[in-house]
């Protein structure tokens, strides 16, 4: 079964191919079957392959489909590499992807571009699978750009509105900044190792470099550039909130569950290089810590339901970066998986609410949906509890707690990382339940126009089950000490060595974290249910700060000022294109001589004779006076 690994990305690819070629001629039912079915097949196959992989007991399995190209010492094959890390990623991609496909069948049923939507989604799943299964960095880059392309296509899916097109372009261009850095990093890796095979690089790196070599640090930073672009971390985070212009299933699949975590995958995959470049690794942590705080603050002030979730995604990926910064690789992957479950759930729930209220995005015009949409309410509540990391019962608690603990107790951790993560957890609890209370409690302000059907509720229920029970596969020392997940990754990813004398404080920190989450929920309850007056007062007394956070720390305006305006200014200066001047001059000269010679074509025979005579005299004179 293992050798059918190549079929996993092939199914979605074929689905996309069929839908692109004949999609417009197929009925919606057939298009939906092809679109969702191909990913479903991939998910089934992932299960079978995963089962075989676990039973076979091999550490990794490599499958070479064919040799892609072989030029000037760079031999690249279309080869897939399966190990525990990529297995977890393909599991999440295919399963969450499949659930979102099912959801989309109902969500998009009125849409004109139904087949086109599924073609893009399938292509996205295919690219993402190639990204995580890639055996070499060239293939990884193919997948990397593929998901970037699909992200562009899907954000701008409703392209008839100009602002969606702008959002799509913004996402594409900003991630391109990071991709360029990453491409340079790949070139440098090739110039040093003469191969781009990931495993070869990882085994050779410790022999070539000693820890802290400047070359390793530079390459680590360049790869980090690619990662922050795709994962929407500081300073390239601005595209993600605008990416909410796409349909809700897209936000769930791409901008929460899978694509944005590609950066996490890349850094985890190349962790050996980061271990050799402590400075770069520290910066991974710093970026994560700062991003999670900034995005959390912004999430507190948003009024668009999907934008709250967008900022919370940035913030949660910040946690993953923080975990990678302290070397807690498996915790980062664990949080990725749990985050994929609950964030997909939240986005799908939000999409269902938005659809039920006739495309109303503003939370403050929702309210009172608790009784009208009970299934969505309960599943959304579970997702929110998981995001807020309510203690013991939610998966989010276990994954986030691990990061908090290692940020404090890990060898590379420090008190600042821990405080940032703790504050972030508190803010997360507040904004999450602010969102829940405003949306589902209080008075109804908009009538429900559409009650979601089974295709929407089933994925929600499945994801909410995963959001609760997904956490129990990895329990901390103090609560049962069950480490199925990290054991699974232990061969691949080094575990964190703790500082001395901190073991005893673990339960205290957990207590603090749990308490803070509950306090956050209580504060949200006080502010938005018991006495909404307080929140209004706070809002009006800190109006400037509120606006500042609402605009995402005005980073857009800053970049506009720093980059866009100078660029536009320079391009206006060079409107007539200096280099073009030379070519226009060439054209002018040709035209001038053409005009002169046209005059000689007078049609008067005697002038021609004159021309011949003058020419003959000239030639004779020259041949007389210039001796050869």
């Amino acid at each position, binding site marked *: 079964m293992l050798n059918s690994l190549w079929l996993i990305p092939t199914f979605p690819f074929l689905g996309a191919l069929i839908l692109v070629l004949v999609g417009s001629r197929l009925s919606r039912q057939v298009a939906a079957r092809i679109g969702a079915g191909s990913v479903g097949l991939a998910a089934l196959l992932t299960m079978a392959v995963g089962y075989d992989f676990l039973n076979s007991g091999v550490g990794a399995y490599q499958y070479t489909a064919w040799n892609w190209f072989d030029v000037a010492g760079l031999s690249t094959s279309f080869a897939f590499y399966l190990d525990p890390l990529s297995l977890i990623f393909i599991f999440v991609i295919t399963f969450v992807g499949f659930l979102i496909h099912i959801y989309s069948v109902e969500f998009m049923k009125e849409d004109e571009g139904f087949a086109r939507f599924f073609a893009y989604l399938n292509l996205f799943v295919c690219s993402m699978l190639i990204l995580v299964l890639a055996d070499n960095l060239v293939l990884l880059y193919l997948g990397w750009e593929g998901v970037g392309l699909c992200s562009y296509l899907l954000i701008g899916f409703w392209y008839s509105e100009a602002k969606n097109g702008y959002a799509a372009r913004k996402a594409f261009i900003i991630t391109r900044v990071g991709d360029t850095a990453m491409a340079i990093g790949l070139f440098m890796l090739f110039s040093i190792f003469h191969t781009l095979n990931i495993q070869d690089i990882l085994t050779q790196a410790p022999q070539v470099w000693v820890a802290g070599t400047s070359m390793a640090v530079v390459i680590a930073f360049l790869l980090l550039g690619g990662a922050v672009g795709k994962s929407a971390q500081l300073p390239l985070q601005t595209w993600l909130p605008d990416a909410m212009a796409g349909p809700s299933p897209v936000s769930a699949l791409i901008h929460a569950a899978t694509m944005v975590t590609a950066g996490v995958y890349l850094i985890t995959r190349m962790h050996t290089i980061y271990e050799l470049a402590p400075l770069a690794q520290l910066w991974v942590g710093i970026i994560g810590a700062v991003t999670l705080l900034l995005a959390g603050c912004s999430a507190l002030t948003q009024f668009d339901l999907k934008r709250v979730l967008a900022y919370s995604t940035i913030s949660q990926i910040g946690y993953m970066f923080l975990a990678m910064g302290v070397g807690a690789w498996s915790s980062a992957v664990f949080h990725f998986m749990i985050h994929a479950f609950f964030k997909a759930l939240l986005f799908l729930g939000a999409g269902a609410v938005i659809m039920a209220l006739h495309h109303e995005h503003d939370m403050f015009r929702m309210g009172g949906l608790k009784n009208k949409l009970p299934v969505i309410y309960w599943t959304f509540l579970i997702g929110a509890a998981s995001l807020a990391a309510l203690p013991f019962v939610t998966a989010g608690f276990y994954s986030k707690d691990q990061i908090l603990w290692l940020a404090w107790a890990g060898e590379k951790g420090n008190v600042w990382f821990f405080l940032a993560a703790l504050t972030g957890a508190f803010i997360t609890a507040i904004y999450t339940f602010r969102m829940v209370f405003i949306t589902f409690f209080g008075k109804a302000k908009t009538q429900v126009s559409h009650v979601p059907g089974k295709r929407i509720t089933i994925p929600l229920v499945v994801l909410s089950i995963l959001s609760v029970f997904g956490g129990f596969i990895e329990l901390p020392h103090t609560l049962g000490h069950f480490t199925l997940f990290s054991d699974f990754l232990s061969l691949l990813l080094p575990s964190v060595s703790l500082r001395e004398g901190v073991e005893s404080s673990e339960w205290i920190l957990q207590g603090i974290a749990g308490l803070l989450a509950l306090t956050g929920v209580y504060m949200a309850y006080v502010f938005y249910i018991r006495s909404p007056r307080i929140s209004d007062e706070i809002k009006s007394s800190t109006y400037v700060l509120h606006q500042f956070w609402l605009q995402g720390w005005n980073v857009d305006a800053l970049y506009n000022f720093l980059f866009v305006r100078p660029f536009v200014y320079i391009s206006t200066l060079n409107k007539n294109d200096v280099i073009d001047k030379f070519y226009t001059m060439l054209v002018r000269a040709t035209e001038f001589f053409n005009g002169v010679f046209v005059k000689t074509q007078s*049609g*008067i025979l*005697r002038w021609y*004779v004159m021309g011949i*005579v003058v020419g003959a005299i000239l030639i004779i004179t020259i041949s007389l006076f210039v001796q050869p």
Partner: protein
Amino acid sequence: MKTLPIESGLLLAGVLFTLGLISVLVRRNIIFMLISVEIMLNAAGLAFIVAGSRWAQADGQVMFIFILTMAAAEVSVGLALILQIYHHLKTLDSDAADRMNG
């Protein structure tokens, strides 16, 4: 037998050629232009004959025969063209035939 010096023969040929050339340039009547071209051709032929007799070679006379033949062909084509021009334009003025601009 007293032979003419080659210079005077070539001078005559040169004068004839120049006369022909000038009249091609200044005449507007196509028939006169054709006659002038004939004069130029014969001047060239004369130069060949003179040169041939100077070196006692037959080549000059052979070339003259060639020139005669070519002149005959040229006149037949030229006269046909003149007839056509006259037929179309009702004039023999060469400047009138400038409608094609070349």
